[in-house]
């Protein structure tokens, strides 16, 4: 944190003052003032729905603010489109990436600039990548890259344009711990070169470690704006939620482990590439929480699909008597929810055939809304039942899925990245729900890139490499280090079993 101590009264690169934005009658960002300084890394924090992404969207020309003014390098600006913001030197890596999948890396990087996707551009990209320790094949198609690489492309895109304000919305939500620390090393290098870096994160540990300054939003207003120096995780959590709500999950109880409820033997799935099952075996028992760790793209996603029963096997067997299987998929809007339908409709989606929705042939909108209300209450979904799911913040959407899947006390619950993008409080709540299911003698399979999460809730942890379950570690013996080694297929990890 070399630059954090210099803190003189420098001119900010960007000053956004009095920013306000409402959707309908709801004020989402309320009179926010924020400064981005050169050479500094600013962390923008806040609960799900606090207005972080909305604020960023206004700064980068995506949304038009209702009121407020932007001053960039001392000049007042109004942005009509992202293009105007780019011209002023402001670039964003969005929560959901903005890349053209069938374009190559070079084509994506030069898109919208005056450069052509030629060798010169490729050379420049490689230069930038080398400086940051990134490895991106410049001529590969973006759709063939893994998430971590796609994000690197996004960052290169901004640096290629010579932008000096870089904003990253939840950049680490989709990264493994190793990738995250690599990212922060790169961001520090970028800041040290005199640029201004802003990032949003719900992982407070990395904020403490990497930020020079924190700005905290709560309910659309700034509640804290101070140097990060001297703040620890619980200080930050307190600033975000405003009171002493529990942010750590209760210690897991000693549950009796019951009979076997699902057995997967040598399961393989169709498809090419690494992200398939390739002879994976596992067994779930009533009343236990089983974790799956692994570097992303090693078969976790098909494993979840197979256990949930939505993808057929090409070989091997899946045995289970249970029918009440619930699934929290990794891909929120793709497989989890229908964005264009309301919260009430999404909540009801599992029950369209059951008596619970009343008549099996008719959908009664009133019953639908009435049934949604208690869930919205219980799971703290931050909007009314009649609002479209796509209007919710990332965290809000996740709560809708969790509410729908957890409320019927399933016998088997498959939860893929259940707390991705959730703030501390909501994450804790979701983990509580997982443990509750196990307490009620359900079997829970948690797939997560967050090792701390696995260590916190699981009774045993499986490690996947190349579509196989290569190791199983009881929680008591597992550590971040031993799991990390097993994940990269290191013999040391194997030996420590």
């Amino acid at each position, binding site marked *: 944190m070399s630059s954090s101590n210099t803190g003189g009264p420098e001119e900010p690169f960007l000053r956004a003052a009095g920013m306000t934005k409402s959707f309908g009658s709801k004020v989402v960002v309320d009179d926010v003032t924020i400064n981005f300084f050169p050479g500094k890394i600013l962390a923008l924090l806040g609960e799900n729905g606090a207005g972080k992404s909305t604020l960023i969207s206004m700064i*980068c020309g*995506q*949304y*038009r603010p209702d009121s407020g003014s932007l001053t960039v390098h001392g000049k007042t600006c109004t942005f009509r*489109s*992202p*293009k105007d913001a*780019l*011209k002023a030197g402001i670039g*964003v890596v*969005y929560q*959901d*990436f*903005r*890349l*053209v*999948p*069938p*374009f190559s890396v070079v*084509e*994506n990087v030069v*898109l*919208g*600039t005056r450069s*052509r*996707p030629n060798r010169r551009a490729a050379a420049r990209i490689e230069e930038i990548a080398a400086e940051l320790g990134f490895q991106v094949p410049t001529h590969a198609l973006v759709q063939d890259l893994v998430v971590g690489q796609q994000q690197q492309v996004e960052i290169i*895109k901004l640096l290629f344009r010579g932008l000096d304000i870089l904003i990253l919305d939840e950049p680490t939500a989709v990264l493994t711990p190793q990738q995250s620390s690599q990212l922060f090393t790169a961001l520090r290098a970028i800041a040290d070169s005199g640029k201004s870096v802003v990032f949003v994160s719900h992982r407070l540990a990395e904020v403490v470690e990497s930020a020079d300054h924190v700005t905290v939003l709560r309910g659309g207003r700034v509640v804290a704006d101070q140097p990060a120096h001297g703040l620890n995780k619980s200080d930050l959590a307190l600033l975000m939620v405003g009171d002493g709500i529990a942010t750590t999950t209760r210690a897991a109880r000693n549950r009796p482990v019951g009979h076997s409820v699902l057995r997967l033997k040598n399961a393989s799935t169709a498809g090419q590439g690494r992200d398939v099952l390739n002879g994976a075996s596992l067994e779930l028992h009533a009343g236990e929480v089983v974790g799956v760790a692994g570097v992303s793209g090693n078969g976790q996603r098909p494993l979840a699909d197979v256990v949930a029963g939505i993808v057929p096997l090409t070989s091997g067997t899946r045995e289970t008597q249970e029918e009440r299987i619930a699934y929290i998929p990794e891909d929120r*809007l793709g497989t989890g929810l229908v*964005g264009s339908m309301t919260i009430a409709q999404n909540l009801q989606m599992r029950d369209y055939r059951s008596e619970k929705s009343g008549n099996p042939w008719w959908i009664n909108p009133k019953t639908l809304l009435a049934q949604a209300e208690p869930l919205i209450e219980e799971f703290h979904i931050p909007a009314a039942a009649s609002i479209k799911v*796509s*209007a919710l913040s990332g965290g809000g959407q996740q709560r809708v899925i969790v509410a729908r899947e957890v409320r019927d006390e399933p016998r088997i619950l498959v939860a893929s990245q259940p707390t991705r993008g959730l703030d501390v409080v909501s994450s804790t709540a979701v983990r509580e729900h997982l443990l509750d299911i196990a307490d009620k003698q359900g079997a829970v399979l948690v797939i997560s890139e967050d090792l701390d999460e696995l260590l916190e809730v699981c009774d045993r942890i499986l490690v996947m490499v190349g579509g196989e379950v290569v190791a199983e570690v009881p929680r008591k013996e597992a550590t971040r280090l031993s799991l990390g080694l097993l994940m990269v297929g290191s013999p040391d990890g194997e030996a420590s079993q």
Partner: protein
Amino acid sequence: MDFLSFALTSAIVLGTPLILAALGELVSERSGVINLSVEGMMLVGAATGFVVTFSTGNIALGFAAAALSGGALALVHAFLCVGLKANQIISGLTLALLGAGLASFIGRDFAGLPIPSYISPLSIPLLSDIPFLGPIFFERDIIVYAAFAAVIITAIVLKRTRIGQWLKASGEAPAAADAAGVPVFIVRYTAVVFGGLMAGIAGAYFSTVFVRLWSDNLTAGRGWIAIALVIFASWRPLLLVPGALLFGFLDSLNFQFQTMGITVSTDILGMSPFVITLVALTIVWWRQQRHGGAGVPRALGLPYERESRI
């Protein structure tokens, strides 16, 4: 002229309006906007082109008017779908019907009147001397050459130019294009209007060069075939050519069997292009599903709204 060279010749002549219209549709779809009103725009172009040519005796003016009228109809589509984010399917279908009605209205007083042949074949020196193929391919009129040239130019623009990248990015990932500073709305507007111009020209070719007559519903479903052609071609310009020639050929059989005295029901022949369309669509779609990379622009049919999520 023997049967084969006659068949090939008419395949080219009848394929030309298909190429023109399909190329316009392809560009529009690559930008993310599906335009189902090609038939309507062709009819309006055919009627306007005929009326103007008939009245002024200037076929260049006729083509210009046809292009403008097709483009104007497309502008309505663009305004509804890109500007107001209306449903592209509904807007397209409505405009297809509206265009047919409008065309009947424009051409009402001109139905059945003949016009002279204004455009004569332009034989290309040397190339037209190639035995057999020369006269078929290189003694055609300027519009035919222009249509083929347009295909090649479009292919190059799509592959090699910045405009091409903008177009493809707008159709694949408009939010990404917008974030990168590509003027997505302008690109989509332009692409849709270009599609309208091309469909208008295609219609005028039909009414002023090929049949040299105006009658209601003159294009008889060729606009719909043009839309199907874009799918056969997997949204790639060069692949439009074989498809268009095939349909031009099938189409020409209708005329040929009559001249040869073979009695096949013209109704059945008239249906054949559509039957082939269904068969070919099934095969092409099935292949694309199996081998992936169907080439469908990912954001095809989806309006882009900057302030809404997803």
